[in-house]
C-alpha cells in the first residue's frame, strides 16, 4: 500500500489525504516538497533558520487547510503560493522592524557587494564566493522581482506556473523577470563586465 502511494502523483496524494485523512500521503508530499520549498524560501528570504521555520509553517498550513485545495489546481503551485505568502509576511515583518529600529544605520542599506571589489579576481572566480555574491545581490533586488526570478531561474518553473503562484498575468511575470534580471545584472556588473 505504501509503495503504491509513493508512485502516485501529487494531486492523487492530496486527494487521498483529503478523503482518508491518513498521514502517509501527507508525509510523502512533505518529503517531495520540503527541499524545493527550502531552496525557494532561502533564495527569497536569506536566513537559513528563518527559512526552516517558514517551510515548517508551510507544511503545517497545508496540513490544517488541506480541504481548501481544489483539484483543478496543481498541487505544486498551491504549496508554492503558501510558502511565498509566508515568506512575504516575513519580509514585511523585517521591514517593520528596520523602520522602528533605533540602531538602524544607513550604512547597512548600502549594497555589501561593493566590498567584493576589493577582493582579488582569483577569489571572485572561486565558485563558493561567487555564489555568495550572487545570493547577496539577489537579496538586494526588489522582492516583487526577486520572487519571480527565483521561481523562474532557480526553481525552473514555467511562466504559467509562476503566473498561478503569484496571481499575476503572464505578461507581468515576464516583464518582472526581466526587470529583476536587469537589477541583478547591474548589482553584479563587476562579475559580468568582461
Amino acid at each position, binding site marked *: 500500500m505504501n509503495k503504491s502511494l509513493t508512485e502516485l502523483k501529487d494531486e492523487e496524494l492530496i486527494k487521498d489525504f483529503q478523503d482518508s485523512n491518513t498521514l502517509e500521503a501527507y508525509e510523502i508530499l512533505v518529503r517531495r516538497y520540503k527541499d524545493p520549498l527550502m531552496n525557494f524560501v532561502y533564495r527569497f528570504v536569506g536566513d537559513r533558520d528563518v527559512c526552516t521555520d517558514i517551510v515548517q509553517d508551510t507544511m503545517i498550513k497545508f496540513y490544517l487547510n488541506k480541504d481548501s485545495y481544489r483539484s483543478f489546481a496543481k498541487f505544486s503551485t498551491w504549496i508554492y503560493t503558501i510558502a511565498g505568502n509566508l515568506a512575504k509576511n516575513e519580509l514585511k515583518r523585517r521591514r517593520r522592524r528596520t523602520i522602528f529600529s533605533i540602531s538602524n544605520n544607513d550604512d547597512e542599506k548600502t549594497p555589501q557587494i561593493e566590498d567584493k571589489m576589493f577582493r582579488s579576481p582569483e577569489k571572485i572566480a572561486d565558485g563558493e564566493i561567487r555564489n555568495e555574491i550572487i545570493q547577496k545581490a539577489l537579496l538586494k533586488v526588489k522582492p516583487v522581482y526577486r520572487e519571480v526570478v527565483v521561481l523562474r531561474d532557480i526553481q525552473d518553473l514555467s511562466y504559467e506556473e509562476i503566473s498561478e503562484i503569484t496571481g499575476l498575468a503572464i505578461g507581468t511575470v*515576464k516583464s518582472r523577470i*526581466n526587470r529583476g534580471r536587469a537589477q541583478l545584472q547591474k548589482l553584479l556588473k563587476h562579475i559580468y563586465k568582461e
Partner: protein
Amino acid sequence: MKTIYNENETKNSKLIKDLQNLPKVKTPENFEYNLMTRIKNKNFGKLEEEKQSFNWIKFLAPSAVVVTAIILLFIFLPSSQQIDNPLLNPAQKLDSQSIVSNSVEVGSDLAKKNSNQNNNSVASSGNSGSSLNSSNSQNRANTRFPLSTTGSVSLDDYISGSSRQRNMQRGNIVNSGSEPMPYNGFFISEKPDQNTLNKYRAQVDSLRKAQMKADSLKKALKMP
C-alpha cells in the same frame, strides 16, 4: 514581445546560468521529525489562531465601513439637495407651483368670470344662477391662488361695505381678509398688463355703478 524576452534571456544568459548552478539548499535532517511531533502534539502556534480570528477581521472591518458610509449618505445627501421651506404646507406648495404656470391664464379667466357675474347681477339680482356662478368662480380662484380659504374675501361684500376690514396690519387687505395673512412663500412678481388693469378698473367701476343703482332702487322701494 516574445523576441524582446528572448533577447533578454540571451543577454542575461551568463547570469541565468549562474542562478541555475547555485547550490540547492536543503532542510535540516530533523525537519520531518520536528514537523510530525508538532502535528502530533497539535502545536500549531499562531497558524491556528490566525485561522480563527482572520475571518472576523476580514468581514467586520469592510462591512463597518460600508454601513457607516450608507448612514452618512442618508443623513447628509437628502438635506443638501432638497431645501424644504418648513413654513409651506403641502397644499400651499402645490398651489404655489400652479400659480407660476397659470399666472398668465388667471388674469384673463378671472376677468371673464367677473364680467359674467357682473352681467348676471345687473340683469337679474334675484337670480339664483348668478350666486352659483359667483361661488364657482370664487372656488376656482381659490384653488388657483396660493391663499388659504380663511384669508379670502368676497368682493361683493367688500364693495358693499358689509365686511369692512379693521385689521390694517397687512398691506394687501383684500387678499388677506379679516385674519392676518399667513406666510405664503415667495411668488414671481410680474408687471401687470396695462390693458388688463384697465379692464379690471372698468369692471370695478361698473360694479360700483350697479351697486349705486341697487341702493337707489332700495331707497325708492322703502319710500312710501
